[in-house]
């Protein structure tokens, strides 16, 4: 036995080290905090996500499950050392870049380490071998398919891909511009960087869904725990103890006062040096809890005389949504066929692999917050309100974001660390545990939808009567957005002569539901698209034919009365699936016919359509882009859209480059920072490519005009940005603009342009009529699967996804969005449901692994939007919406069983099969 309190010696990335940290500390923590190797990520501290995968003596291990003392005398290799040690890793990094296999980048180091270990023992692995080797690393962005392709493609000869010529960036499959640091593991996420004097904050959170509390003797607790620098409670919030993403509905306290409304709500925080705070048993914090009766479900909150979650919100209803067109009752009464159903969806967690984290610094009378966020300007506004300081006294610097999907629009760590750093005048950081992330940040709204749809005997839709309740939890978050988006979208992308859609966002005592990829539209799609299948079946019409026949035409009004005109690409999406549909139906029928009589396996095919409005619903959401030309001949693009992995850094640069007529390599990107970039709004609502991209196009064109004017050149002149000069080639004449001779503005630019774009929309009237969006994205997914009818198990075989993206600015990134959206749709349909108070981890809350996403074939339709930049539309949310209903329709096709409650877990599927057999 040796004295393990002494330094632990081991070999780290080929070099001997001795680390004088407690030997029982997790290796992951030692690597990150003591050795500064933050490429090893921490997603769960439980071996559930694999983000911390390292090599120990050449074998993969989760660094979160090893004590420092256990690596004594061993060789540990991390993403920082692996490329130098292994040519395989270097090839993998390039392959990941080329294939778009890294999106947000938080899982990328773990994937690369695991893939290096695999390729070290098997140079050309099968797909199954890749899945087996990478099965222990979760990814929430990519849908895994491009990761598999990247690993299998290593070692194959690669033709050098030239950067696109000036003016040819839009449409090119260029590598993600911020990709190198993601595959190097050097991108800096919320928890990755902090100065040594930063204090650590941890929150005290209620264990009850609903309760009262009294704080005890805080002074005595401080005295007994000298490591605590200060305790914070509601009394310490200098400004308003209230925040929320939609100003008029803001209702969430930083620290609860007297009453707590969901399990995990914070009542206080302790701040001190990390070692001291980590050593605390927070269960001993002086607070007495009193549990109160709680509404956990829609039914409980809507019951007669239910107690109110918020006194001012009558009947526990936060907001109602309404879209009405024509006489729905008459339309359904006159229909040849009517189907109806009640559909319920579960509470879904975003489960990004990066738990929320950040650090706040007070700089004089200003507050600087570096944290993972999707909405820096909204964060700025709320932090200023909470601190009671002017907006321009707050600077938000988004870190790299390890997945967002809507939940990082809302504040998480920011209010706590900002309040603490404001008082202490010392940097304060906070890193959510996985349990904290799951239990306290927003979720997808559980929905309960009752829907009737009618059609004529020849299959023309006549009307839809939709009513939906959405459990919005304890605080408003984006509940109003869900209540308003759903009625606008619940018809799906079809012409619906008569329509009534009524929604309610209902308060309960669960963690707030907020934005999650689609704002309620995926839930509505699960009802609408299953009912269309039921209607087509009833009428004896082919399900794809039924959809194609009813697909909204450019000259037909939507349910809000808007005629979309050019760019209504839904029909093209359905038509593109036609050959796939015929093949798949034939194959499924043949497989079922050929199967032995006692085979439990049944093949099925399902289809679903989708539409989704890009940008805010009838509300202003402008983006502003600044573009400057520096005297050295380089362009500076101030691009404030946060890239959460979806690729806005790359796509917006591509759009801007072509608008200027510059090569993409001439552009230096200045990414989101509220001091440096104008407001590009939030990364949500599939708006960044469309709205910020359009602002980038306008700014690029404006700067181009200035350059052309200086050279007195025509509109078609070619520009070339060279050191210190711009060469303008106009026909046979080349003008040289010497940039050093031009005056510079306050920012040091010799030329600059700043342009703002907002989508042209109108407000909705009392019946929800108007033009809520300037652009809709359209799509349709087809799912092929097998159901084991004895066990209720689904095996997905293939998903074919057609999307009208207007213009595919970067097809690789779009495919990445589609595959990632599909993976989340698979989770929504088959796996995922959060139960507050249970399963606050990633082994009970199951998201798809690399073995759960089938082959995806993407079909990109380019029906250009007249409004979008170069015709482009959004894709982020569109990609997820049709997956779940297409899966459910395929299950019904295979088995005859309709799933009315999702996720369709094996037990629910088996129960539905038994019920269908009983009815049949």
């Amino acid at each position, binding site marked *: 036995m040796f004295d*393990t309190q002494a330094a632990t010696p081991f070999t780290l990335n080929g070099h001997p080290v001795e680390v004088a940290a407690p030997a*029982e500390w997790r290796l992951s923590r030692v690597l990150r905090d003591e050795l500064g190797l933050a490429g090893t990520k921490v997603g769960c501290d439980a*071996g559930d996500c694999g983000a911390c995968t390292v090599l120990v003596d050449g074998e993969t291990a989760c660094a979160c499950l090893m004590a420092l003392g256990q690596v004594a005398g061993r060789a540990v290799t991390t993403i920082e050392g692996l490329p130098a040690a292994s040519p395989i890793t270097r090839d993998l990094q390039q392959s990941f870049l080329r294939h778009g296999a890294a999106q947000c980048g938080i899982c990328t180091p773990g994937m690369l380490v695991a893939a290096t270990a695999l390729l070290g023992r098997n140079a050309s692995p099968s797909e199954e071998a890749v*899945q087996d080797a990478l099965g222990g690393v979760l990814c929430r962005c990519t849908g895994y398919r491009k990761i598999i392709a990247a690993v299998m493609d290593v070692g194959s000869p690669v033709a050098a891909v030239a950067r696109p010529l000036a003016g040819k960036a839009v449409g090119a499959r260029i590598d993600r511009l911020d990709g190198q640091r993601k595959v190097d593991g050097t991108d800096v996420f919320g928890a990755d960087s902090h100065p040594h004097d930063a204090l650590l904050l941890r929150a005290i959170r209620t264990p009850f869904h609903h309760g009262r509390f009294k704080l005890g003797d805080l002074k005595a607790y401080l005295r007994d725990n000298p490591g605590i620098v200060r305790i914070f409670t509601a009394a310490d919030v200098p400004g308003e103890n209230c925040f929320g993403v939609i100003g008029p509905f803001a209702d969430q306290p930083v620290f609860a006062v007297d009453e707590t409304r969901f399990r995990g709500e914070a009542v206080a925080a302790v701040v001190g040096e990390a070692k001291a705070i980590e050593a605390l048993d927070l269960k001993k914090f002086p607070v007495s809890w009193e549990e109160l009766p709680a509404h956990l479900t829609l039914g409980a909150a809507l019951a007669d005389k239910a107690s109110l979650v918020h006194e001012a919100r009558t009947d526990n209803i936060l907001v109602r949504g309404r879209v009405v067109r024509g006489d729905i009752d008459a339309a359904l009464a006159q229909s040849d066929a009517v189907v109806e159903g009640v559909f319920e969806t579960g509470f879904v967690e975003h489960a990004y692999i990066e738990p929320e984290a950040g650090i706040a610094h007070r700089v004089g009378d200003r507050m600087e917050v570096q944290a993972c966020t999707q909405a820096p300007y909204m964060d700025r506004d709320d932090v200023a309100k909470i601190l009671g300081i002017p907006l321009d006294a707050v600077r938000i610097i988004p870190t790299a974001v390890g997945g967002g999907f809507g939940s990082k629009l809302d504040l998480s760590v920011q209010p706590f660390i900002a309040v603490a750093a404001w008082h202490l005048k010392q940097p304060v950081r906070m890193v959510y545990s996985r349990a904290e992330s799951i239990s306290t940040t927003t979720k997808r709204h559980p929905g309960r939808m009752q829907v009737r749809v009618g059609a004529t005997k020849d299959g023309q839709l006549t009307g839809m009567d939709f009513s939906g309740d959405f459990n919005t939890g304890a605080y408003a978050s984006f509940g109003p957005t869900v209540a308003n988006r759903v009625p606008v979208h619940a018809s799906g992308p079809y012409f619906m002569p008569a329509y009534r859609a009524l929604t309610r966002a209902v308060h309960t005592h669960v963690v707030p539901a907020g934005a999650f990829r689609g704002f309620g539209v995926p839930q509505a799609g699960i009802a609408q698209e299953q009912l269309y299948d039921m209607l087509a079946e009833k009428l004896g019409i082919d399900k794809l034919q039924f959809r194609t026949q009813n697909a909204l035409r450019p000259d037909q009004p939507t349910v809000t009365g808007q005629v979309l005109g050019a760019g209504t690409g839904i029909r093209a999406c359905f038509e593109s699936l036609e050959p796939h549909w015929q093949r798949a139906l034939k194959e499924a029928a043949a497989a079922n016919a050929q199967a032995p009589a006692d085979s439990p396996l049944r093949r099925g095919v399902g289809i679903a359509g989708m539409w989704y409005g890009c940008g805010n619903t009838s509300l202003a959401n402008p983006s502003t882009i600044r573009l400057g030309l520096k005297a050295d001949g380089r362009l500076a693009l101030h691009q404030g859209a946060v890239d959460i992995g979806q690729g806005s850094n790359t796509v917006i640069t591509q759009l801007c480059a072509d608008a200027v007529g510059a090569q993409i390599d001439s552009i230096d990107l200045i990414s989101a920072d509220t001091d440096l970039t104008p407001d590009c709004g939030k990364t949500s609502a599939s708006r960044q490519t469309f709205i910020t991209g359009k602002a980038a196009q306008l700014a690029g064109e404006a700067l181009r005009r200035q350059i052309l004017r200086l050279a007195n050149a025509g509109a078609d002149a070619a520009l070339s940005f060279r050191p210190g000069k711009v060469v303008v080639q106009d026909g046979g004449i080349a003008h040289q603009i010497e940039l050093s001779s031009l005056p510079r503005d306050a920012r040091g630019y010799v030329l600059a342009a700043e342009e703002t774009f907002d989508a042209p929309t109108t407000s909705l009237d009392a019946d929800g009529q108007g033009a809520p969006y300037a652009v809709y994205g359209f799509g349709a997914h087809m799912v092929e699967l097998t159901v*084991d009818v004895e066990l209720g198990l689904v095996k997905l075989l293939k998903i074919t996804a057609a999307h009208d993206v207007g213009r595919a600015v970067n097809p690789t990134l779009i495919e990445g969005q589609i595959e990632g959206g599909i993976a989340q749709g698979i989770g929504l349909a*088959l796996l995922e449901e959060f139960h507050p108070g249970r399963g606050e981890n990633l082994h009970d809350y*199951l998201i798809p*692994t690399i073995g759960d996403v089938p082959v995806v074939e993407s079909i990109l339709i380019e029906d250009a939007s007249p409004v979008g930049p170069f015709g482009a539309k959004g894709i982020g949310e569109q990609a997820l919406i049709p997956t779940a209903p297409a899966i459910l329709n395929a299950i019904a096709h295979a088995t005859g069983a309709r799933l009315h409650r999702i996720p369709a877990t094996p037990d629910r599927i088996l129960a539905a099969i038994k019920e269908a057999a009983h009815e049949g």
Partner: protein
Amino acid sequence: MFLQPATLNAAIDLLAQHGGKLLAGGTDIFPALGQTALASPMIDISRLPELCAITTGADTIRLGAGATWSEIVAAPLPAGFDALKAAAREIGSIQIQNRGTIGGNLCNASPAADSVPPLLTLDARVELVSPRGMREMPLSAFIRGNRQTALAADEIVTAVLVPRENGDFISHFSKLGARRYLVISIAMIAVALKRAADGAIAQARIAIGSCSAVALRLPELEAALVGCRSVTDIATRVTIARLGGLSPIDDVRASAGYRRDAALILVRRAVQDCFEKRTATVGR
């Protein structure tokens, strides 16, 4: 406090002296710890040479308690261990299999521990050492309930012992989970069969996990299967009545009713697959 004894005897002394938690692969201890600080000493037994070896003796195959799942998968073991190896490949992920140990899995005593059904069909015994000496007991006696074992506070599991003749069985494992990797079982089945010269089942051992607080052998079914000559025979003899003492619970993974239904199907298929030496697994 982190203690790293160099020998088994030193580990036993330290445990007697300080109490505390034994750390092997860490795949259960660290997740349970979460953000809370370590309250008791940690004794690292992951590198004790006495615990690591997998050896074949005259009568007994001895799996050191510190053997990792990857080591077990790689070890040259007879066909009776195929089910255990298949279970090992389903435990968490490769990262977990590289660290997690057989002894740790048994001491954690989860009803969903994938290794337990195969070890039950192997009639495995557990070897324990304390300052009072060494003792042995059947695995079925060692695991007493959900997260409960016969392990005394001062005791260390040192090995899992399997009678050598049990290596002669044909064995099969199948696991039902809601996703492909990193998944806690809804149910899992281990089957070990011996065929007579005429092909009929001469001896059957079947165990099922995740459907009761402790994984169970199914003796009634085992007896009923003797003499089966075909998969059709097997299908008729696997009945719900012969699944005996299952007491599945509702949890986040599945309902109790579903587990009961699925158990019957899974057992039937697993026995049939083993009989045909098919390797297909369900739940993928």
